């Protein structure tokens, strides 16, 4: 059978997408593609990644063999130079002629270069293709100051690229009074400007460039307000113009300001000729974003396969990260009073600006702008696109609810046709369907099945919520399985390892898991093994399954050096031991700091020096402080009744007893404690995982408090108990936590998720409602009895000690790349050596 021939002019993202979509729908066409550039279609959206290290191949949309496999003829470096619509042929630069049945223009756009005097000088570039980037990169080596003309989306991307290239001073010049004039308002622009200025970019608004100075090479810019700016190079990013010259030549209708005129089926005035992407003009509009381009490809591919589909004016909502700053706008961002009511939130301290526009009756969300924090973008977009009725207090959509409940209409209120992934055009219905009908129960499964989240990935959190929600709605037990290697929850794995008496990571993986493990299950299993058997964690076979810090019994710091934290139980230390710490720190040139947990942290130790440092500390009577482990950190104390005139009991002695009891025990996450000698609570016990406060009659025991990012007060578990009872309760509490908490869950979060809350916990711990008390107490007792200082074992074991060297083939040499700088008489690490710094 003779296949119908389709010639595609242009091999950009949209041209490629069209081929992919058409091939997936039908095999009855022969596709011939002509590209002007020397390489296959690549991801132009992420072009600036080319400067932060991605290669051209990384950016490529497909593998080299894809076109062959699909039997598509791809001609690169060979642009079409003429079209004859009568004979239905095209001629190319190489002088060949090809005939077509259908012709598709996917010629994209070129950079719009304004007519500025001197624009032809060396050092002036546009920002559009990988070739442009190569030219910019080569020229930038001798440039110190650079400017970008254009403060739109692409201009900001170009500015980021210049920063990545190591240009010392980069400025952005915008003709309009604000940045990203198509997406954000004046107040949003001000916020963005101040954040970009903080990053070292100079932003010049209201600037009209009148000429470019220099002999052959650019040396500066002159503006219409008679000001000047010295620059060594200039990148123009002042907009795009559709590539319609070929279409124009062969008599296809183009718009007065450019663009190939198409109807809703992407058809031009010639029924056999179509245009898609940035070269197409639909309802007098050029769509310069990728999502509508893909939608055009989809519409055309469908229509060619006799599936009727039409393009509707596309939502231009967009969310992106610019130089680490979230910027999003959706719906109608600019609509103003009296056509709507606006709610604005501005936080200059954190660099956050949010604006939502709601209908005058308060019913619907019309549009908005988010700068600095765009986490609410997906939900807001859905609320506006699907005209979901707003909650009573719509401000909660951008401020978060102050009542503790999730604000706004949840995913359940979205209609099935709500577009969740706009890159691939996947609806809520498609996603839920993949779960209910096609059995997808993982995010990866849904991605494969529906393609949702495979474009920009911004919708993935929402896809996951939809998946979990759908699974729950089906009555499926949603198990929090660990990773692809273990189809069990942490709690299940704990019991299984116990029952099978497994002692090493490999045994656990062979018996209960599959494949070869990963950085999620390895530390988790290691923690379970430690909680159960309390063996030396660096035992051969388990050493490489430990988390980064456990692996070297020290916390890795910026730059690759480690910190050393000996235990100072209860925060009590003798002058002699203080002197030892001082001497060791001096000898090994370590930075010292008092920690929040009443001990002393020594930073900046080379991996090679760790064993010898610890040998000296151990000789002086110190032991590991387990600052690197998920286990007990410190038991902080106030000075208590031994010195304090208010003290009721000896809080220091009790803190030391507690710290020495639970030291080294591994748990789902770190845990901290404190003991206060009276109700003044100087040890801040109520912010700890368990905290003890002296009363006239004994101790009050508080549990599940937390400092950190989400502070939470501990809750009273038992009052006026004696020391022995208090310890018994803590034993039970800790074992219950170790056995049942999800991985990396602190006690506060664990309690928050527990049905019945503190009352249930009290019933289990105090009233022994599960009948586990005696067992848990004996399990803790066993852990206490088998405690050994890990560092002592490590320095005494030559096989383990051997691993504390940086180079396997030069064990004496330290990592020469570790550097320090001086600050306030001590050393510190230099800033991250990276271009993505915020």
């Amino acid at each position, binding site marked *: 059978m003779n296949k119908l021939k389709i010639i595609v002019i242009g091999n950009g993202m949209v041209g490629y997408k069209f081929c992919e979509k058409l091939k997936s729908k039908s095999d009855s066409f022969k596709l011939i593609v002509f590209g002007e550039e020397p390489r296959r279609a690549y991801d132009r959206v*992420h072009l600036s*990644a080319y400067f*932060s*290290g*991605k*290669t051209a191949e*990384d950016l490529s949309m497909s593998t080299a063999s894809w076109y062959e496999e699909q039997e598509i003829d791809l001609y690169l470096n060979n642009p079409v130079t003429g079209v004859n619509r009568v004979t239905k042929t095209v001629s190319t630069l190489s002088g060949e002629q090809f005939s077509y049945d259908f012709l598709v223009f996917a010629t994209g756009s070129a950079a719009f270069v304004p007519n500025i005097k001197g624009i032809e000088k060396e050092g002036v570039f546009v920002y559009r293709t990988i070739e442009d980037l190569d030219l910019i990169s080569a020229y930038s080596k001798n440039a110190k100051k650079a400017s970008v003309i254009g403060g739109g989306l692409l201009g900001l991307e170009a500015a980021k690229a210049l920063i990545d290239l190591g240009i010392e001073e980069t400025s952005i010049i915008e003709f309009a009074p604000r940045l990203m004039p198509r997406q954000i308002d004046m107040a949003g622009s001000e916020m963005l400007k101040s954040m970009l200025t903080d990053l070292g970019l100079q932003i010049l608004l209201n600037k009209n460039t009148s000429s470019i100075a220099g002999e052959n090479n650019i040396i500066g810019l002159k503006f219409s307000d008679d000001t000047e700016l010295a620059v060594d190079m200039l990148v123009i990013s002042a907009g795009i113009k559709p590539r319609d010259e070929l279409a124009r030549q062969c008599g296809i209708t183009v718009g007065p300001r450019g663009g190939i005129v198409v109807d809703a089926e992407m058809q031009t005035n010639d029924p056999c000729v179509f245009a898609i992407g940035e070269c197409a003009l639909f309802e007098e509009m050029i769509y310069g974003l990728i999502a509508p381009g893909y939608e055009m490809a989809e519409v055309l591919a469908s229509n060619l396969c006799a599936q009727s589909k039409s393009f509707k004016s596309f939502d231009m909502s967009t969310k992106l990260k610019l130089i680490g700053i979230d910027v999003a706008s959706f719906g109608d961002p600019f609509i103003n009073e009296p056509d709507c009511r606006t709610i604005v939130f501005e936080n200059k301290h954190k660099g956050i600006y949010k604006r939502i526009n709601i209908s005058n009756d308060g019913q619907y969300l019309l549009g908005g702008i988010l700068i600095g924090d765009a986490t609410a973008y997906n939900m807001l977009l859905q609320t506006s696109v699907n005209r979901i009725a707003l909650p009573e207090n719509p401000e909660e959509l951008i401020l978060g609810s102050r009542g503790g409940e999730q604000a706004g209409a949840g995913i359940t209120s979205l209609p099935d046709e709500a577009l969740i992934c706009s890159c691939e055009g996947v609806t809520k219905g498609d996603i839920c369907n993949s779960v209910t009908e096609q059995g997808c129960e993982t995010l*990866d499964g849904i991605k494969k099945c529906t393609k949702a989240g495979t474009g920009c990935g911004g919708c993935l959190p929402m896809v996951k919520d939809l998946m979990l929600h759908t699974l729950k709605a089906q009555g499926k037990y949603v198990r929090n399985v660990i990773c*692809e*290697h273990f189809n069990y929850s942490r709690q299940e794995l704990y019991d299984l390892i116990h029952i099978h008496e497994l002692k090493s990571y*490999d045994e656990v*993986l062979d018996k209960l898991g599959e*494949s*070869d*493990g*990963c*950085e999620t*299950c*390895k*530390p988790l299993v290691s923690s379970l093994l430690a909680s159960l058997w309390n063996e030396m964690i660096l035992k*051969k*076979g388990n*050493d*490489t*399954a430990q*988390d*980064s810090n456990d*692996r*070297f019994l020290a916390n*890795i710091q*910026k*730059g*690759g050096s480690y910190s050393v934290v000996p235990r100072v139980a209860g925060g009590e230390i003798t002058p002699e031991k203080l002197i030892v710490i001082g001497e060791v720190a001096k000898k090994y040139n370590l930075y010292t700091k008092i920690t929040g947990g009443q001990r002393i942290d020594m930073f900046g130790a080379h991996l090679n020096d760790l064993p010898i440092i610890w040998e000296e500390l151990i000789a002086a009577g110190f032991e590991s402080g387990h600052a690197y482990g998920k286990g007990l950190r410190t038991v902080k104390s106030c000075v208590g009744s031994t010195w304090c005139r208010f003290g009721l009991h000896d809080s220091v002695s009790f803190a030391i007893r507690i710290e020495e009891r639970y030291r080294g025990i591994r748990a789902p996450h770190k845990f901290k404690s404190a003991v206060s000698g009276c109700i003044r609570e100087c040890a801040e016990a109520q912010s700890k995982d368990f905290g003890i406060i002296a009363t006239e009659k004994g101790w009050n025991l508080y549990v599940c408090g937390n400092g950190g990012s989400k502070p939470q007060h501990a809750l009273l578990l038992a009052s006026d108990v004696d020391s022995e009872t208090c310890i018994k309760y803590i034993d039970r509490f800790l074992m219950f936590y170790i056995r049942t908490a999800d991985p990396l869950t602190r006690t506060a979060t664990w309690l928050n998720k527990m049905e019945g809350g503190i009352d249930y916990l009290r019933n289990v711990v105090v009233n022994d409602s599960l009948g586990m008390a005696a067992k848990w107490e004996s399990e803790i007792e066993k852990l206490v009895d088998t405690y050994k200082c890990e560092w002592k074992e490590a320095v005494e074991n030559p096989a383990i000690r051997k*691993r504390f060297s*940086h*180079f*396997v*083939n*030069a064990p004496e*040499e330290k*990592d*020469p*790349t*570790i550097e320090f700088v001086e600050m306030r008489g001590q050393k510190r690490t230099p800033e*991250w*050596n*990276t271009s993505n710094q915020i």
Partner: protein
Amino acid sequence: MTETKNNWLAACRVEDAVENGGVCVKNGDEQIALFYFTRRNEWYATQNECPHRKQMALSRGMIGTLTDEPKVACPFHKKNFSLKTGECLSGDECAIKTYPVKVEDGTVYIAVNS
């Protein structure tokens, strides 16, 4: 086309390598992470520097698999890289360099460009 010639650098003895983990090999000013994936009986070598924050750290990372693709996770921020291709499997960091490895008579060799 320039022809690159591989020099086989004798990195270490098999018993000096860490089972199911990595060690760092010095090659002049260059640092190479050498991984002995004992479970799969495979050897891999990559650059030691993680491209994300430019830290000499990959040899201290945990190795494992992602749908059977062998990978290493940087100890700093858990960026994942394929040990086979060097490609970044989590996010959009650039790919890392990989080197051929061979074992002869109990010595591990890494192919480095001369």
